[in-house]
C-alpha cells in the first residue's frame, strides 16, 4: 500500500486542531522528549532519522540545525517557510489547518535545539484561514506553557512564536527573499553562499537563522516523538521517511497523500483513483517548476529525490499534477510561463526579461503567430536563463519549458505549422485575463 500516514496519522481525528485533543493523541510528546535530551542529542536524533528538507531542495535538515552557534550570545531566529506558492502544492495548507500544533511543537523543538528565542512563521498572504488556525494553536500553546518563558519548566528555555503574513509574492517562498520580506524590505532574494554567509551564520537581522519548511518541522516533531529509527526505517537509502504529495489535475480523488519515500509513481495515481476524462498523458511530479514526464516514461519512476532526478525531473515540493490526453501541452506551458513572468521579482536580468520573453513567444505561438525557429529560440532563451539568474526562480521558469519541448516537441511544431491546437478542444483552460492583474490594480490605485 502506497499510503503511509505518519504526520497525517491524526488528520481525520475530529477536533485535532484543539490542544486537548492533540495532547490526547500524543501531542507535545516530541517536545517533552526533546527537552529531556541534550541540545546536541536532539540534532543527532534528526541526523540519524535522515530527514531532508521538504520544501523542494532536499537539503539534509540536521546540517542546518547544527550550523547555528550553540549559545545565547546573539539572538537566533527559527523561521518556518509557510509561503506555499508552488502551483500544484497545497500540503502546508492542510498541515496548518488541521495540525498547526505539530508545527508549533516542531518549531519549539528547533528553538530548543538551536538556542533560539524567537520564531517566525511566514505564511503566504492568501492563507487567511490557515493563519487563523495557527494563531489559535499558538495562543493555546502559550496558555499550556509550550511557548513563552521557561517552557515545560526548563530554566532558560524561552521561545516566542510570531506569525508574519506575506503579501502575495511567489518569490517570497525563496528563503533569502523570505528573509528580506520578513525584515520589512522588498521581497528580493539576497546573496547566497559563497557570495555571502549562510543563513545559519548571518540570516535575518544579521543573526544566525534556521529556516525550514512546514512539513520539515512537522516531521521533526514525529521523529522526536516516535524515534529516529522508526523514521529512518522508512523510505529508500538516501530519502528517508515519508513525503506528503499534493495530487491534483485530471485525477479522480485529488488530495494530499502521505506516501513512503520510494513509492512507485504509478501506485500513487492508482491510490488517488486514477485518471479521469481520458488516458494519462503526462505527469508533473513536483510542482510547476519541474520537468513534465510523458506517461510512457512513468513506469520506472519512484517518489524519492534520487529516482526523480535520475529520470530527468524532480520531486520538488510534491505538487503532483496529472494530465489526461486532452491536455494541450503548449497551452499548459504558456500558462506556466505566464505565472513565472508575473512572479519574477525583477531583480536580475535573465529572469526579469527572459520569463516575460518566454511568455510572449508562447503567447504568439498559441495565438497563431508561430514562426519557424521559435522552438530553437525558446530553447536558447531557456538556456540563457537557466543557471544565470540570481535565484532559483529563473531556473524554475526555464526547466518546464525545456522539459515540455523535449517530451512533446511535435505539439509545438503542430501549433507553429497549423496555428491550432493538436488536441482539438483542450482541457487546460487559457489564462482568465490577458491583462496582468497587478498592472490593473496599480492603474486603479493611481
Amino acid at each position, binding site marked *: 500500500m502506497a499510503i503511509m500516514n505518519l504526520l497525517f496519522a491524526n488528520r481525520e481525528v475530529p477536533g485535532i486542531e484543539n490542544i486537548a485533543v492533540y495532547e490526547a493523541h500524543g501531542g507535545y510528546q516530541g517536545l517533552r522528549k526533546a527537552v529531556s535530551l541534550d541540545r546536541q542529542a536532539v540534532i543527532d536524533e534528526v541526523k540519524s532519522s535522515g530527514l531532508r528538507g521538504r520544501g523542494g531542495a532536499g537539503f539534509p535538515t540536521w546540517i542546518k540545525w547544527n550550523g547555528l552557534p550553540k549559545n545565547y550570545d546573539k539572538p537566533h531566529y527559527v523561521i518556518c517557510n509557510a509561503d506555499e506558492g508552488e502551483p500544484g502544492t497545497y500540503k502546508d495548507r492542510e498541515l496548518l489547518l488541521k495540525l498547526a500544533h505539530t508545527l508549533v511543537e516542531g518549531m519549539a523543538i528547533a528553538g530548543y535545539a538551536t538556542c533560539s528565542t524567537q520564531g517566525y512563521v511566514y505564511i503566504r498572504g492568501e492563507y487567511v484561514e490557515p493563519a487563523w488556525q495557527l494563531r489559535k494553536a499558538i495562543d493555546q500553546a502559550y496558555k499550556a506553557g509550550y511557548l513563552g518563558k521557561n517552557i515545560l519548566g526548563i530554566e532558560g528555555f524561552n521561545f516566542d512564536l510570531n506569525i508574519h503574513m506575506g503579501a502575495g509574492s511567489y518569490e517570497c517562498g525563496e528563503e533569502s527573499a523570505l528573509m528580506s520580506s520578513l525584515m520589512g524590505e522588498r521581497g528580493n532574494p539576497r546573496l547566497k553562499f559563497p557570495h555571502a554567509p549562510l543563513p545559519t551564520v548571518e540570516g535575518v*537581522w544579521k543573526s544566525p537563522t534556521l529556516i525550514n519548511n512546514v512539513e520539515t518541522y512537522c516531521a521533526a516533531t514525529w521523529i522526536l516523538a516516535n524515534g529516529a529509527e522508526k523514521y529512518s526505517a522508512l523510505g529508500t537509502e538516501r530519502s528517508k521517511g515519508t513525503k506528503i504529495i499534493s495530487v491534483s489535475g485530471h485525477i479522480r480523488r485529488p488530495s494530499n497523500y502521505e506516501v513512503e519515500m520510494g513509492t512507485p509513481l504509478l501506485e500513487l495515481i492508482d491510490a488517488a483513483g486514477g485518471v479521469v476524462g481520458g488516458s494519462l498523458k503526462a505527469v508533473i511530479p513536483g510542482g510547476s517548476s519541474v520537468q513534465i514526464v510523458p506517461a510512457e516514461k512513468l513506469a520506472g519512476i519512484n517518489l524519492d529525490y534520487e529516482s526523480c532526478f535520475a529520470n530527468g525531473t524532480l520531486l520538488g515540493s510534491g505538487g503532483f499534477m496529472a494530465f489526461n490526453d486532452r491536455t494541450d501541452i503548449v497551452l499548459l506551458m504558456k500558462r506556466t510561463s505566464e505565472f513565472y513572468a508575473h512572479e519574477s521579482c525583477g531583480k536580475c536580468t535573465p529572469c526579469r526579461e527572459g520569463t516575460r520573453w518566454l511568455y510572449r513567444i508562447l503567447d504568439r505561438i498559441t495565438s497563431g503567430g508561430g514562426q519557424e525557429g521559435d522552438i530553437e529560440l525558446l530553447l536558447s532563451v531557456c538556456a*540563457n536563463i537557466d543557471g544565470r539568474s540570481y535565484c532559483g526562480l529563473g531556473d524554475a521558469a526555464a526547466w518546464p519549458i525545456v522539459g515540455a519541448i523535449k517530451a512533446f516537441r511535435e505539439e509545438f511544431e503542430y501549433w507553429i505549422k497549423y496555428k491550432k491546437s493538436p488536441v482539438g478542444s483542450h482541457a487546460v483552460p487559457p489564462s482568465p485575463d490577458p491583462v496582468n492583474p497587478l498592472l490593473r490594480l496599480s492603474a486603479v490605485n493611481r
Partner: protein
Amino acid sequence: MSENKLTQTDATLNPPTTDLVNIKINGVAVKVPKGENIIESARRVGVDIPYFCYHPRLSKGDAANCRMCLIEVASTAPDGSVRKMPKPQAACTMPASEGLVVETETPAIIKDRKGILEFLLINHPLDCPVCDRGGECPLQNNTLFYGPPTSRFIEEKRHYPKSYPLSEHVVFDRERCIQCARCTRFTEDISGDSQLGFLKRGADIEVGSFASTAYQSKFSGNVIELCPVGALLSRNYRFKARPWDLLTQKSICTQCSNGCNIKYDYRVDKIQRVNARLNEDVNEEWTCDRGKFGHDYISADSRLREPLVKRGGKWHPISWTEAYALVAEKFKAAGSNVAGIGGANATNEDNFAFQKFFRETLKSSNIDHRLGAYQGPGAGPIFSRLGYHTTGTTIAELESAKTIFLLGTELADEQPILFLRVRKAARFKGAAIVNALDRAVADTTSASDFADVDLLYRPGTEVALLNGVLNVLFSKELVAAQDGLDFSGLQSAVAEWTPEKAAAETGVSAESIVRAAELLARGSVAVIAGKTVTEHAYYTDIAAVLANLVIAVGSPAGLNIPVTDFNAQGAADMGVLPDYGPGYTPVASAGLNTRGILQAAASGSLGALWIVGAELLEQYADTKLAESALENCQFIVMNALSLTPTASMADLILPVASAAEKDGTVTSCERRIQRIYRAFDISGNVKPDWLVFTEVAELLGGGAPYVSARDIWRDIAQTIPTHSSITLKSLGESGIRWQYAHPAPKPTVAAAPYKAPAAAGTSRA
C-alpha cells in the same frame, strides 16, 4: 528616527585585509586580499570583466543583479583536485578565497554575456542618437565589445512616457532603465535619504520615488553619473551636447569650502555640465547638487565683459586704461585712507596680490575677507589653545573617528561632502554620532537620521550643554589622565553643571547628556561645529569650551570649525586679515576689520574702498551697515562677475575672470591646497583679479610685476614658511594639505564663563 544598523547590508568598502590568498585568473596565478571580489582581483592581472550594477562604493547586497559579470569558478581542494562550480558565478560578489580558479573568457561565458546583453536590450529603446549618454554609455560599450550583433526579439518593446521629471535636477527615462539598482543603492548607502526604490515587479519593475513624489535629495546629481545607461539624466544638461562635442578641464568646486574636485565640461566658452573628479581624500567621487548644478553663473549671460563706470547714475562701458586711470587717481588721492574687503571667493594668488597691493603699494592694512559675525583676532579663538586655526581633522580622517560630535550644523547644507563622510563613518565604519542642534534653528537635520543621540538645546545654551557633558565625563571618571595636564581646575569649574542642572538649563534630557558623554569617552573624537556656532555672539566662549572638551577626551586634534566660503581659508592664509600678514605673521599696526571698514565708509571718512567679489548686501550680517557704507563711501571699485546688488552700488566695476577662466590655487577648509585651471576665456576684456592688482600697482609705482599666477605662487612659497616646500607640480592631482611648522602646543584647559541667554530664542547674533 535612528536607523537599525543591524539590517544594513555590508559594504564592499571593508578595510583592506592583510590576509592574502592565492588565486588563478585565466591561468595567471596572483595573490590578492582575502575576500576581495573577483572583478577587482581580475583588474590586478589586467583582465576586464564587464559589469553594469557593480560599483565599489555601493553595498554589494543588491549587486550581482545585472548578471553581466558571470565567470566560471572552480575551487582547489587541499589534495590539489579542482572542482568546478556547476553554475557560472557573479564576479562582483564572488569573494577571493584560497585556491580559487577563475576563467573569464571561456566559450560558455562569452555566450552568457551575449545572452545577458540580448536580454537587456530587448526592452531598451536603442534611441542612442538622441540619448545624452550616447558616446559614454556602459551599455553601448559593453554591447559593442561583448554583445550579439542582432536581436531575436520581434515583439513590441516596453513603452513608457519619455523624460519623467524625477526632481528639480533629474529626469528619468524609464524605457532606458536596466534596473541595475545603482541609483537606489546610492540613495540608501551614500546619501542616506532612501528616496529611490523599486516599484512593481518582473518585467514591469521600475525605479521610482514613494507615491511618485519628487526625488528630494541634496545629492541627487550623483545618480546621473552612476546610471550605466541614459535613464537618469540631468535636466540642465539635457540635449545640450554630445560627449565628443565637449572639452574638459579640471577644477575645484566654488560652492563651499570643501574643495571638491570637479571637471568642467564645456563647449567653446560655455560650461555645459559639471562632473565629479576622483579624489579619495576629499570627495571620493561624489558631488552635491549645489556643486553639480551651481556653476551656471560662470556661463551666465549676465557676466560683465568690459569695465563699467557710473556717471550720473548710469553705467557706461570704458576701456581698462581709463578704468585704471580712474582707480589710480582716486586711490592716490585717498592715500592710506583706503580699505579692501573680500577675497573669500578668489584664488590664493588673487588674495596674495590683493594684500600685497594694499600693504606695500598703498601702505594700508585695512583689508579683511571675513563677512561673518566673528570679527575678532584673525587667528581665530582656538589657535592659541590647540595650535590650528580651523580644522584639526582631515575629511578622510573622519572615517576613522570613533565618535563624531556635530554641534549646531545642518552639515548636508553647509559642508555636504563632509556630511557624506560623516554618514560613511556612521554607516560603514561604526562611528557613533552625537548631533547637537539649536532647537530654534531646526528640530532635525539630515544627520538626525543616523545619529545615536540627538541633543536639542535651547538657543544660547551651548556652553551649558558642553559643561554638562564635561561634568559627566569627570563625575563618571571617563577622562583618562594625560601627561602633564591638570584637569582639577576645569573639573571644579564644571562641577556645578550636573546633568540635571544642564538639562534644566538647556532643555535636553539628563539621560541624553549622559549618553552623549559616554559616547564621547570612546576616544578618537571629531567635533564639527557649524554656522549656528560661528555666527553666535558667544562664539569665542563656545570655542573655548569645545577646546576643553576635545582635550578632556584625549583628541586635541579633533576640533573642526570649518570656514564656509570657497577660499576663505586661503584668504586668511594669504593674509587678507587686518592683523595678520601672509602665513599669519602679525603686522606692526593692525588695520580695520570688515566692520570697522564699513563703519568708516558709512561715516564718509573712508577715501576709497575696493571690494573683491564680496556680496556685502547678501552676505554681511548687518545689512543696514553694509547699505549705508556702500551709499556713503567716497569711491568704491568692485571686482565682479556680474552686476549684483552690491556691484550696482559701486562707482566702478572691473569685470574679472571666474574660476573657469584663470589658473591658480585654492585652499579648502581642511587646509588642502589644490589647483584650478583655465578652461576658456569669455572675452579678452576679462582679467583675473591678481592681474588687476598687479597692473594698478604698477601705475601707482610699486609692487611686483607678476606676469602669471605661477609667478605669484613662487612669491607665496618664498614668503610663507609653511608653503615653502610646495610647488605647483608637487600639488599633483589630489593637492597637499599644508602643515604647521610649529609643533602642536601643549594643551591647556581653561574654563569659559557661561552667560545665560537673556530671553529664550533671542540670544542668537
